[in-house]
């Protein structure tokens, strides 16, 4: 393929007898599936947009020419001030991008300006809310060795700690009665510069700080079943209760006198590269060359016999050649409006009408298993939370329809990163899979558990309450769907989550016909690279 043609937008393929089999992501592997002709369609993401030719120049440009009611960054900097630079954590972008990471570029630019202005009280905080702490290697990757070596050794570059009793403050309460909890250092700074990577439409805006620098006290007001069921979808700001809550909190933060200079960036869809072993995942199957086909078959044969651990290693070493497509800085809301347009420019694919059955191939990675294991709860969260909600207008699948995911879903957990997930899976889900009941009966206990808090603060564990949020993330889908089937999943793990398991897509479609009747319409969402369906 030549890179000189203008990138093509997303595309909806109507499957007919001549359509080739479609590649489904399947964890650390792939499946080749033939979809029933004449009633199936495949939604392809847009091809990667061209990146900005001079990213560093564009960044400096954005810092000097802010959007909305904001002075240029240099005007906000003065000697003796307290400056906090907060940045997105390991969950962004996915998969991690090749060096230099966008955060490194932006942070270096900000630090240059700060140095020019004579600012020396600078802290850098990984705004991870209740995610796991980032390791030294991960921090180095995000901010670059130069920044790391300058700030980490004397404790000015660190992970946010939402359970530090001295490190958190409550700034106030929204009119909806939501506590706004915030990092004390950020709250007490003269300026907070937030460095964001806006991978999907949900990211960024007030969520960057209101969520990223908060803790359980604040998060519980929007990370709950009620909010998620009232976000249709949480990827669509106009219709997201999650978004609304974060915006209310953002207002309280602003009113409390916290000055935020928001820097948002977007990347293109170049997830798997235009060349290299995974490049064909970005191509449309009927355009594959003979060489592509050979290469795919070779890769699939290799992966089929490779042990899981080796496969995990291979896949987690993949770094995306993402290119920066936009950068904007200034006042949070004005910035985020432009950012969202840029996200939509890459992701939105118009789709006409809903479908009876939605199929998805689940990849090896989600925001919470970078350098880790994609455990069953994360499979659920990625499918029923993220992918299901990648719509605007109406869900891709009709109410009472069936979702078929493809993923091995092994009963495997990383005990360092996901200790509370293990217990959630063994104890909570063994009791009930109903999000409302789970929230009522178990959330508080897990959220306040001293052992999980200890591991979150001192080891590399997600917070005790995190698996609950994963489950809530899927609660809109759980309410909407008539059935969930996982193709190729571990039967015990899949059943534990209240889903059904099928060994082939054909079986899954058979099982689905119990719910949606014979001859259902089928839509396959070919994601990633990421697409967001604009359903009319």
């Amino acid at each position, binding site marked *: 393929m030549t890179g000189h043609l203008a990138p093509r937008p997303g595309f909806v393929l109507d499957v007919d007898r001549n359509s080739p089999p479609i590649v489904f992501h399947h964890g650390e592997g792939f499946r080749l599936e033939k979809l029933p002709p004449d009633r199936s369609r495949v939604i392809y993401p847009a091809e990667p947009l061209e990146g900005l030719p001079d990213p560093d120049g564009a960044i400096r440009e954005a810092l000097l020419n802010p959007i909305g009611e904001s002075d240029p960054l240099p005007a906000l900097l003065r000697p003796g001030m307290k400056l906090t630079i907060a940045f997105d954590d390991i969950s962004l972008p996915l998969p991690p991008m090749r060096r230099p990471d966008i955060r490194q570029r932006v942070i270096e630019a900000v630090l240059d300006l700060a140095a020019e202005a004579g600012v020396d009280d600078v802290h850098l905080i990984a705004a991870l809310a209740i995610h796991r702490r980032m390791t030294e290697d991960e921090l180095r990757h995000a901010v670059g060795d130069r920044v790391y070596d300058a700030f980490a050794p004397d404790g000015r570059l660190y992970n946010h700690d939402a359970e530090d009793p001295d490190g958190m403050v409550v700034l106030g309460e929204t009119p909806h009665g939501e506590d706004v909890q915030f990092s004390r250092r950020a709250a007490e700074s003269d300026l907070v510069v937030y460095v964001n990577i806006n991978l999907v439409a949900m990211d960024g805006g007030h969520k960057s700080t209101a969520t990223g620098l908060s803790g359980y006290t604040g998060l519980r007001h929007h990370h709950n079943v009620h909010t998620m069921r009232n976000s249709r979808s949480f990827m669509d700001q106009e219709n997201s209760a999650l978004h609304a809550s974060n915006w209310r909190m953002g207002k309280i933060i602003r009113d409390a006198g916290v000055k935020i200079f928001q820097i948002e960036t977007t990347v293109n869809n170049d997830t798997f590269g235009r060349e290299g072993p995974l490049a064909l995942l970005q191509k449309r199957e009927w355009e594959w060359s003979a060489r592509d086909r050979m290469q795919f078959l070779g890769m699939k044969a290799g992966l089929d016999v490779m042990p899981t651990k080796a496969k995990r290693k291979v896949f987690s070493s993949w770094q995306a050649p993402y290119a920066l497509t936009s950068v904007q800085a200034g006042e949070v809301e004005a910035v985020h409006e432009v950012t969202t347009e840029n996200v939509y420019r890459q992701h939105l694919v118009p789709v006409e009408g809903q479908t009876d059955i939605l199929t998805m191939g689940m990849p090896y990675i989600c925001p919470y298993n970078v350098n880790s*294991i994609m455990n069953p709860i994360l499979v659920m969260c990625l499918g029923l939370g993220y992918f299901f909600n990648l719509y605007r207008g109406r869900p891709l699948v009709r109410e009472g329809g069936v979702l078929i995911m493809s993923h091995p879903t092994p009963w495997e957990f990383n005990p360092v990163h996901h200790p509370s997930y*293990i217990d959630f899976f063994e104890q909570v889900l063994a009791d009930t899979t109903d999000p409302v009941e789970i929230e009522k009966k178990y959330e508080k206990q897990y959220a306040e558990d001293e052992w999980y808090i*200890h591991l979150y603060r001192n080891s590399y564990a997600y917070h005790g309450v995190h698996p609950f949020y994963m489950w809530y993330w899927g609660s809109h889908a759980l309410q909407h769907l008539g059935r969930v089937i996982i193709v190729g999943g571990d039967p015990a793990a899949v059943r534990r989550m209240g889903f059904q398991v099928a060994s082939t897509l054909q079986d899954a479609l058979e099982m689905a016909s119990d719910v949606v009747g014979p001859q259902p319409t089928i839509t396959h969402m070919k994601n990633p690279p990421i697409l967001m369906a604009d359903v009319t």
Partner: protein
Amino acid sequence: MIPESLAERRIAVTGSTGFLGTALVERLLRSAPGCELVLIVRPGRRGATRRVERDIFRNDAFDALRDQLGPDGFAEMTTRRVTAVAGDVTIDGLGLDDEGRAALASCDTVIHSAAAVSFDSPLDQAVEVNLLGPVRIVETLADLRVAPHLVAVSTCYVAGSRRGSAPEEPVDASPFFVDVDWRTEVEAARRIRRDTETASRTPERLVGFREQAHRELGAAGTPGLAAKTEQLRSRWVDDHMAESGVARASSLGFPDAYAYTKALGEIATAESAGAVPVSVVRPAIIESAIAEPSPGWIRGFRMAEPVIISYARGLLKEFPGVPEGTIDVIPVDLVVAAICAVAARGPLDPDDGPDIIQVASGSVNPLRYGKLVNLVREWFTEHPIYDDMGQPIPVPEWSFPGRGRVKKQLQRAGTMLDHAQKVFDVLPVRGRQAEVGARLEEQRELVHRAEGYVDLYGAYAECEAVYGLDRLLALWDLLDDDDQAAFCFDPRVIDWDVYAPEIHLPSVVKAGRIPMKPPARGGESRSSRLRRQILAPERHLVAFDLENTLIASNVVASYAWLGSRRLNGRDRVRFVAGLVAEVPTLLSLDKKDRSDFLRYFYRRYDGAPVDQISIDAAEKFSELILTKSFPAAIRRVREHRALGHRTLLITGALDFVVEPFRPLFDEIVCAKLGVVDGAYDGQLTAVPPTGEARYQALVDHAAAHDLDLRESVAYADSASDLPMLEAVGFPVAVNPETRLAGIARKRGWLIEDFRKSPGMHRNLLPLAPKRTVGTSR
């Protein structure tokens, strides 16, 4: 009229806690309402009265009587008619106090049914009880200057192993009796005990016992090994004494020590009786009741039962014996009735011949061995026993081979299992695999026990003596109709075709608590019941071991990780090579003594900077320890804490290694190193908590916090933790190695199978990852 004759009588009874004794007491209280009883029982810890209450009156033999009188009426009746007296037939003077002597002196009749009936009792014990017991009774009576009627219960088998008729005549009147002096035999038995005790204490033997204890328990610490060693020694002495008994008995033509000592006991009693008139009642093999107190009533596991159950379990593929031979079985109620009739009748006039009656079935209503085997096989084919997988066990068909062939078969099976066990013992297996080993051990024990049965009971199955019943039947004929109805001892009434399948066998499997149904699905399993007990709010203290209980790691791995964290290139290779080369030394040291191993091993922390170790240890916790942790075990600790239990970690690991576990435990007992100038000196500051030191730490902790160990729980993985596990009321074996798996299975402890989280990659060597970028920190 038996009840009338017995009215106003005071009857002393020995052995009333036994099978025959209990039935006798019940019958006297129920069918002879006029008599009073003096029960001479060993007082035990609780005293004679409590023991009679607990061990006799609570037996289901008294259900009918209790129902009839009501609980209050029953209590009133027993209080009025029964006197409990502390006494012991193995003590000269019967160990009676003044009250006891007075009570005995007031009796008109003494029924002596105390006996060491076990067929493999140590020789001297059988002699003390069976031979000297009745002698001491008559001597005590003489001392008290009374001469009540003594009814001494003996056995038909005093006739010895012989073919043909064995009439009701004194032992020494038999032409086949080998004349030995009973006093010499008593002396010899006591001397053999002394010699055996001496022999068991030779240095070679003691070393042997200790080695065996070590093989069974591993590095369990000195006190633990000492207790086990002494237990093995004393068991060796008993086994040796039992062997001596069998050997001496068969040298004189008796099937076992029981018959031999009973036979000499009869002679000795006759010799010592003086003024006391003695009647001897000789039952054959006493089995479950045909009708009274209730059909099938049985107490304790008797002679034939273990054999029958072993057969039904499929363990006894063959049993020796001749099909046309007679198994002389007599239901207990017939024996009781005969004793009552003899007591009522009183002593026989010496001119009327020897006062001996035999209660047996062989001569008038024989049960052929072949028939019995058929009845048993049919019954178990219809009502099979279930194995632990819930499958019915098919019963084998016997071909009645000779004893030698059966023994050889069993020995072969036993030897094979012995070898398999030995192989298993040296394999480093844990958890599920170790349980296979434990099951193997169980099988092996069952086979060895079956072998023992063949040894012991084979003689009975092969015995072809026919016991004469002339006097018994003569006594029967003297009874009027009422007595015959109330005190039936006519062996001709037994219908074997009904007795075996409808009365005896159901009662045997019931008494043996044998699984006759496949385990119920859905019901609470044993382990979930145990788990519920362990997780009950009323538990006090919960102690955990660390290695292989909470994490699949050890002190060597921790050291390797910490040691390699800051090494690169050639240093790293050298470090690894050095450690690997030392592994055999370390392993053998650990096997011998855990404390020595820890001391030796921890020396290599000499010079390690405290600051650096504390930073590195925190990283190690995430990268090594948590990766190798058992999530279910950690969840269990937290469940205990949620229930308000006090949690305690006792480990030989170092403080900086276990520090991150602090939030899980109220207290951590661990090893600590001394510090000099900001660096560790490689010396332990205190005795490392291993083996008995671990037990002591637990006991100290419980005492300091006023906690009851009986209400406490301990989790550990190895037999070396036995002192700690045994100290608590609720021990839990976690992923046990073979030895502990065997012990836990035998004692019915909860066994937990905690595992690492699946899906984590395993490094061959527990080394820190190479640090590629920067070293600043």
